[in-house]
């Protein structure tokens, strides 16, 4: 029989349990499709066919034994920032080309425990620094909606392969918008969990106080199942918070009636494209028609300073985290330098790409003697103001609604030579990482044949509220069912 690869993960899971087809058959068909699509997309750095087929056989045994969960036997792709035991993990950097981790990161271990089938490692901006997946040592990823456009970033490969119906689920990481912005630009669902909700153990570190691993999916139900599988505290990551993990579909029956939605005007100002604004305004009307209470009086003035705060804090943390790449223990290594110090500097100078060097330099400067107070400490104080502002807004509202990205997918090459123009892509997503709250991007419109995404921000550890609202919105609209043109 022919397997319909356009189904969602929960539809596949039901079919697998009903014996309609096996995980091995689904996995073989999935591998064939993602290999074929990659000639157009370049969404993957590494395919893991052998691992996937072994996991599929194990999943089929579990299903036969009646021991299947919602992800058992379902194909999943993971961002190549997540360590996979015995499988190259590059962070899309020449620095880590050929690096083979000796452990799985916690989230990959949890996927394996859930019986998921890992089919490949997806492309990203080098060390997750970027908003277009053009800063990859392995070439740019293309947007399945228009191959001359970017998929967003940094988790662009994970977003593109879900949008193109290559896999139903994938994992990305989000430090300033790296799940939500590509989800918006590719027309799928992407969720950044609350800081501390998901373990970062074994995730190649960029900015430790900001980043989280989270799901990409085509609907809220799939995102809920994938988040449920990876969430929870971890003895290997002491920043995980011991809050119980709920069933993330627990609010799916709640609907939108009475949901208190703040729409801050600060997120609708200069820089927002008119067509994106139009889609968001229509989505707000749809929510109101379902009984949501819209409040446009919330100001959030400090959030407008989030971009400079982020571009001080994140590069500062990156400059410290990336100090470990010295060409000695692992990674790219220059061995013919004049001295040990020269070899380290040469290894880093040649192993890192342009954007990574830019951020290491920026962070080193912000932390250096004489500038620490003016930049790093100042940014941390403004961070407090942004956090307080969010806390105040959430005292009287359930969610904050904003556009996810100021524009639809832009053209490859359009912004890659203008760092600050690239940074502005994350204007609306960055404040959320600064405050630590969870947020979801859901498809809410089309413009110029390209998807538009809406961001819903929630209270800490209330991912269920976001997923419930996304599910309810998906019941009365069909933006999340729009599919890009089929690829070869």
């Amino acid at each position: 029989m022919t397997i319909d690869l356009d189904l969602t993960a929960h539809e596949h899971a039901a079919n697998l349990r009903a014996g309609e087809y096996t995980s091995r058959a689904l996995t073989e068909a999935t591998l064939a499709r993602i290999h074929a699509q990659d000639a157009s997309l370049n969404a993957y750095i590494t395919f893991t066919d052998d691992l996937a087929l072994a996991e599929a056989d194990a999943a089929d045994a579990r299903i036969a034994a009646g021991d299947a969960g919602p992800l058992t036997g379902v194909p999943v792709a993971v961002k190549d920032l997540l360590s996979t035991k015995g499988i190259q993990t590059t962070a899309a950097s020449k620095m880590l080309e050929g690096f083979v981790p000796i452990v799985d990161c916690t989230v990959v271990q949890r996927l394996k425990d859930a019986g998921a089938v890992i089919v490949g490692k997806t492309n990203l901006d080098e060390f997750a620094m970027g908003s277009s997946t053009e800063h990859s040592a392995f070439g740019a990823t293309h947007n399945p909606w228009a191959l001359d456009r970017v998929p967003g970033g940094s988790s662009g490969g994970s977003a593109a392969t879900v949008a193109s119906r290559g896999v139903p689920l994938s994992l990305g990481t989000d430090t300033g918008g790296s799940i939500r912005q590509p989800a918006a630009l590719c027309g799928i669902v992407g969720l950044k969990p609350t800081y501390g909700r998901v373990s970062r153990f074994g995730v190649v570190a960029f900015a430790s106080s900001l980043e989280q691993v989270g799901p990409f999916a085509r609907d809220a139900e799939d995102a809920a199942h994938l988040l449920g599988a990876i969430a929870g505290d971890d003895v290997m990551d002491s920043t995980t918070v011991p809050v119980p993990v709920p069933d993330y579909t627990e609010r799916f029956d709640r609907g939108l009636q009475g949901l208190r939605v703040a729409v801050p005007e600060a997120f609708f100002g200069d820089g927002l494209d008119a067509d994106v604004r139009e889609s968001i305004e229509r989505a707000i009307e749809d929510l109101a028609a379902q009984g949501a209470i819209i409040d446009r009086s919330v100001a959030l003035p400090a959030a407008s300073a989030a971009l400079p705060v982020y571009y001080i804090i994140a590069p500062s943390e990156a400059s410290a985290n990336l100090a470990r790449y010295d060409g000695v223990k692992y990674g790219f290594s220059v061995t013919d330098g004049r001295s040990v110090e020269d070899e380290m500097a040469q290894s880093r100078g040649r192993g890192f790409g342009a954007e990574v060097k830019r951020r290491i330099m920026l962070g080193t400067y912000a932390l250096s003697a004489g500038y620490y107070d003016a930049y790093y400490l100042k940014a941390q104080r403004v961070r407090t103001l942004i956090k307080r502002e969010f806390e105040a807004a959430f005292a009287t509202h359930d969610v904050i609604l904003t556009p996810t990205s100021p524009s639809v997918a832009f053209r490859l090459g359009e912004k890659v030579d203008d760092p600050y123009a690239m940074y502005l892509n994350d204007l609306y997503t960055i404040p959320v990482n600064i405050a630590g709250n969870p947020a979801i991007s859901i498809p809410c419109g089309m413009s110029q044949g390209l998807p538009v995404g809406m961001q819903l921000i929630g209270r800490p550890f209330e991912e269920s509220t976001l997923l419930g609202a996304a599910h309810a919105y998906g019941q009365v609209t069909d933006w999340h069912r729009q599919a890009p043109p089929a690829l070869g």
Partner: protein
Amino acid sequence: MALTADEVRYIAKLARVALSDAEVERLGGELSTILDHFQVLNDIDTADVPPTAQSFDLHNVERPDVTRPSFDLEDVLLNAPRREDAYIRVRGVLD
């Protein structure tokens, strides 16, 4: 504010990143532009505001001190660029 080439080279030395002259010149311009955008923070009054290093204040996270097996030596040396027996080989650090 404009960073001079010497300042860029000084930061590169702190960061242990070898840069070509062309990179020094380009980064000087790019970093100066980015730093200019940071000036808006000076307009925000943070006189009595404490800094936030992490979103949710977790303190003194502890676990029982239980011994666990270490990684296998071969595994640990798997990715070493230069290896000699059970060691990672590096350049001499003393002249």
